[in-house]
């Protein structure tokens, strides 16, 4: 580091809920270390109450985000990419610390993550053209199907791929107008926290994106049984028993559940299935007459 005799101001890592940075209401933290076992930070350990607060914020955020025009949503996502680009060095540092990768690999992951946000920004005003359509029903009716956002999605970010994987999970949820509560990678949460700083300074509506750190096994069950959560993305759940019990909880309000993929390749260009998974198709009929 430059000027190694200067004492750094260390960051307190907090949750990101409702556009603000609260500590966990439980007051708890947990230690995160780098791949050499060295102390990195005390990370806020979110509780069920934090999760509950996040749902309230997410629902409020959804109520305005879902009404934003597609153009507007695309611009907001693009702005996130702009802000991330400005913080590239910070992300590269964070990824190196978190994943122990080389500077080169960390930089590549950061570039890809930003590019992926741009990719999804470009989908905001297009995916409904691909996922929606008119239907040629046999009768004098105009019939169209449109994808609408599901609502509030609770997601678990991938445990590895602390930035690219995270972006690959939350961007497709957001692009269609959903709001998201994401639990960052347990062991590599710091890139997610840096991301939340980007979000706070982009034009993201408060509550639209909420980032919690902590133990998914503790927080997810309450989100899975929460009646005001509409869908679950279990991508980062590595314990099959936990996944199964979350699916059971989800049945209580017939939530849509996206299971963890077995061997995700975050580098590959995504399909539309992640956007599709968190949309509801609405089909409208109207007679055509004089």
């Amino acid at each position: 580091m430059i000027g190694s005799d200067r004492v750094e101001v260390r960051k307190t890592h907090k949750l990101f809920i409702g556009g603000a940075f609260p500590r966990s209401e439980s007051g708890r933290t947990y230690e995160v270390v780098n791949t050499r076992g060295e102390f990195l930070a005390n990370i806020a350990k979110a509780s069920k109450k934090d999760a509950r607060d996040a749902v309230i914020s997410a629902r409020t955020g959804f109520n305005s985000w879902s009404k934003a025009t597609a153009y507007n949503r695309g611009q907001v996502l693009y702005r996130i990419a702009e802000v991330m680009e400005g913080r590239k060095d910070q992300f590269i540092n964070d990824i190196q610390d978190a994943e122990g990768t080389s500077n080169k690999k960390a930089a590549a992951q950061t570039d890809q993550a930003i590019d992926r946000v741009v990719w999804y920004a470009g989908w905001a005003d297009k995916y409904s053209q691909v996922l929606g359509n008119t239907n040629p029903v046999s009768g004098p009716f105009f019939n169209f199907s449109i994808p609408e956002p599901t609502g509030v999605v609770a997601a678990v970010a991938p445990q590895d791929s602390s930035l690219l994987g995270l972006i690959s999970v939350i961007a497709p949820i957001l692009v269609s107008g959903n709001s998201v509560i994401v639990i960052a990678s347990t062991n590599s949460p710091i890139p997610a926290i840096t991301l939340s700083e980007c979000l706070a300074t982009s034009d993201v509506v408060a509550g639209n994106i909420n980032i919690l750190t902590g133990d998914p096994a503790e927080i997810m069950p309450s989100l899975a049984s929460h009646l005001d959560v509409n869908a679950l993305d279990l991508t980062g759940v590595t314990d099959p028993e936990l996944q199964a019990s979350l699916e059971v909880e989800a049945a209580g309000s017939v939530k849509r559940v996206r299971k963890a993929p077995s061997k995700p390749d975050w580098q590959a260009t995504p399909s539309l299935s992640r956007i599709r998974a968190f949309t509801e198709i609405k089909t409208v009929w109207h007679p055509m007459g004089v």
Partner: protein
Amino acid sequence: MSSLENQSAVSHKGLLAFLAGLPGVDQVGAEARAAALGTRSIKKESKIRAIDTAISMVDLTTLEGADTPGKVKAMSSKALHPDPTDPSTPSVAAVCVYGDLVYAAREVVGDRIHVAAVATAFPSGRASLGVKLADTKEAVAAGADEIDMVIDRGAFLSGNYGKVFDEIIAVKEACGPAHLKVILETGELKTLDNVRKASWLAMKAGADFIKTSTGKVTPAATLPVTLVMLEAVRDYYQETNIRIGVKAAGGIKTSKDAIKYLVLVNETVGDEWLTPDLFRFGASTLLNDLLLQRQKMITGHYSGPDYVTID
């Protein structure tokens, strides 16, 4: 819907506002309802009664440039005794002819059935009010006890509802004791919204019957159009306690068709309207098909064209 106290006091502006306030008609929905009613299966004794009812509701019609007294007298004869082989066959309700041949019809039918005359520059309605009133008065003087007038569709489609309204009032007055059927010519009105508006306009102006068509324009009577007219009549009755009649004219060729109309009447306004005083068929070839079906119901075997008279 506003309630008007005195027709002659109606301002044209008030009429416009009233007509604009009528509920719209969804074409697809109305057609679907009419089609659904058309799937009622009327068999056996209900079919026989329906056929006889339909016969008694026919206005047997000839409205051709080539009509002669001979033609009219022959048709009038058939009107009285539709089936010479079966005197139990009911008479039709009326004969319907041009005003200058009313006398010929009356000579044959006497007072036994009605004689309806078309008037008011039928079928186009394109003439001055004076001509239309003269047409009406002459027909009544010649013995017509029913007048089938046409509305001025040009005035209607250009939004001059007041003119249409005033004309009907004037013709009604010229009718004297004759009952007035107002032909809307639904085939030229095109939309069911217009049919609803025209129905209400005619009823408020004093029509005794509202009639679908002149028979000279296609499409003439259809089930959806008649449905909308029956709904208007029903709603008018709710408001005023007055029953107005409906005549479906033109394009109704078979007994099957006729029975569908009776079902329409039954399930839209109710069976009080299933009488020639409140429902008529304006038809010519329909009568023979009714007679053929009647023969089949009675004898049990299918009949043929040689067993009904051509006039």
